[in-house]
């Protein structure tokens, strides 16, 4: 397949619309040659299917961490012209609506933490439930849950689970307007009712990391983002909207399948690309419900931060404020958002789907908080549990090329089944501890599934987005403690 790609640059490859019947735009793969060669055929098949969606603008994009998903590949981005029949597709967002990342700084160094690391991780493992059937400490009834999905992180401030300033450092200030709870099924609410404050499973995690000075690539932006101390301890975690979001996605995928062809005469190449015109009743209903899941996920991550602050405060015997447990940012990587972008010299509001892709707004964008506006928004990219993670900044290049989008993680290269055959979780845990990473996991089979070699090399992925100028490298973080879902 690689030989059929047209090289646009060292990090951009194009599949022309002639490749597949029905393609309305070309597909563009953001990757180095190495990563592009290694992408499996399903990625190319899926991204060219995305290029057939009604109303798609410019290109169907795949980021360098791209791998096969359903409907969209993971790492897929597509912007839709909502004024000209552009569609919204749950497959372009994913089942885990607003799966995302949160990064928190501390004023601690590795030497401060080292004597307490095991205790911190053990306590976090207790306080932040993970795995099948995990239940959070926040006890809610349906009416209160509906308040959460409408009010987002503002609910957390009211209940004492957030510092007011946390909202400023969250995308959408932790609350997106326009949720209509009547568009959300009781099934979705029942699935999510007890899951606020839980990590989930699979590739979800909570990590204590170190910002080593040799891995701070842009000191100026790092300081703006709060990375100011050599060997500074940061905390990063990855989770989403749990069963609530999964059910919202399922409900609307089924709804769209039932109306798409019959009512809107839309034919698609993959059922997981089921869609409806954004401005249709069904499209608007899903958008409203999806926003509810967005808000719920912000609340989930906010409550987890609350627990992290409690644990650090308890173990280190100081207030969380004194420990400097401040947010850097919270980003979503499974969403669809209405955003203004320049197309053919004119500002236009479009719907941007990002599935396993992160917003990467560059300097000057009004959506970025004043503190960060001059340097671009923070982008938090999780690597595998064995390798490390990154903090990037959004660029004008992203605005010009990818509707302000970039990668979201490493991207898998090995199936979960194969990883479980090749690795034993108990051995992996011991091996990681020898290498200075203390891991607490809910299940050893889950740990095996997340073995480092099951993922692409995060450094390769980050180099690709940096070279393509759709993100700028700021810092790399080394894991030292991990709670695995």
């Amino acid at each position, binding site marked *: 397949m690689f030989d059929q790609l047209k090289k646009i640059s060292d990090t951009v490859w194009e599949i022309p619309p002639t490749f597949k019947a029905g393609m309305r735009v070309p597909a563009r793969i953001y990757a180095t040659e190495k990563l592009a060669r290694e992408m499996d055929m399903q990625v190319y098949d899926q991204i060219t299917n995305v290029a057939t969606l009604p109303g798609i603008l410019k290109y169907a994009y795949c980021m360098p961490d791209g791998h096969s998903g359903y*409907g969209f590949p993971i790492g897929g981005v597509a912007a839709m012209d909502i004024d000209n029949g552009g569609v919204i597709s749950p497959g372009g967002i994913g089942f885990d609506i607003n799966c995302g990342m949160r990064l928190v700084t501390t004023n601690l160094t590795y030497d401060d933490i080292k004597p307490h690391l095991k205790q911190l991780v053990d306590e976090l493992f207790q306080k932040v439930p993970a795995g099948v*059937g995990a239940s959070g400490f926040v006890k809610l009834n349906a009416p209160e849950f509906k308040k959460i999905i409408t009010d987002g992180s503002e609910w957390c401030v009211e209940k004492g689970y957030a510092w007011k300033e946390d909202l400023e450092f969250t995308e959408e200030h932790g609350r997106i307007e326009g949720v209509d709870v009547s568009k959300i099924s009781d099934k979705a609410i029942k699935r999510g009712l007890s899951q606020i404050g839980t990590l989930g499973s699979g590739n979800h995690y909570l990590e204590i990391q170190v910002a080593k000075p040799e891995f701070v690539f842009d000191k100026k932006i790092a300081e703006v983002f709060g990375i100011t101390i050599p060997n500074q301890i940061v905390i990063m975690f990855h989770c989403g909207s749990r069963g609530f979001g999964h059910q919202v996605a399922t409900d609307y995928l089924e709804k769209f399948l039932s109306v798409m062809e019959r009512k809107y005469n839309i034919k698609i190449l993959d059922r997981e690309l089921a869609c409806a015109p954004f401005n249709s009743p069904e499209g608007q209903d899903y958008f409203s419900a999806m926003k509810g899941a967005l808000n719920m996920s912000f609340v989930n991550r906010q409550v987890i931060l609350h627990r992290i602050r409690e644990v650090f405060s308890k173990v280190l015997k100081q207030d969380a404020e004194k420990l400097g447990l401040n947010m850097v940012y919270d980003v979503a990587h499974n969403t669809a958002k209405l955003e203004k972008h320049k197309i053919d010299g004119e500002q236009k509001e479009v719907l941007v789907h990002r599935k396993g892709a992160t917003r990467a707004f560059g300097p000057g964008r009004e959506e970025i908080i004043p503190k960060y506006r001059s340097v671009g928004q923070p982008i938090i990219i999780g690597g595998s549990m064995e390798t490390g993670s990154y903090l990037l900044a959004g660029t004008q290049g992203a605005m010009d090329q990818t509707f302000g989008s970039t990668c979201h993680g490493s991207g898998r290269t090995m199936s979960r089944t194969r990883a479980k055959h090749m690795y034993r979780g108990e051995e992996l845990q011991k091996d990681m501890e020898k290498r200075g990473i203390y891991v607490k996991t809910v299940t050893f089979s889950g740990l095996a*599934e997340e073995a480092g070699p099951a993922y692409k090399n995060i450094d390769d992925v980050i180099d690709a987005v940096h070279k393509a100028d759709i993100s700028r490298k700021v810092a790399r973080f080394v894991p030292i403690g991990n709670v695995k879902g």
Partner: protein
Amino acid sequence: MTPYRALEDVSVADAAFEIIGKDLNEVLRDAALATFSEMVDIYAVGGTEIREIKIEADNPEDLLFKWLEQLIYLKDAEYLWFGKFDVHIGQKGGKYLLEGTAYGEKITQDPKKMRTDVKAITRHKLKVEEFVFDDVEKKIRNGWRATFVLDI
């Protein structure tokens, strides 16, 4: 021999299965076993919690989808995991009607038996079709085959 087969290279981030059985009852029963095998050691799950499930669908694929969707819903909404299923499928007025019983227990998060959570049944590679296969005695049988992918 397990009644389901994990498909390694269908979906790297998720779990894909193939089920072959002599009839739809067997295939849907074993699809449920495969789904819960991702989440728990199904042989270690008790049967004190019983749920009766009725599903109606236009075709076998929708039937499989709705069946697994309902089980995944119960997992989160009622904190149940299941290790045994009885399935009876009939047809009436052109519709497929499933009456199922799921036997399980409240989720304990016992690390000895817990595995990885399942978020959803997807429509990706979802297929239920009539299938001719050799049984263990090498007899040719007319049966059914299903493939599906679970979002992990």
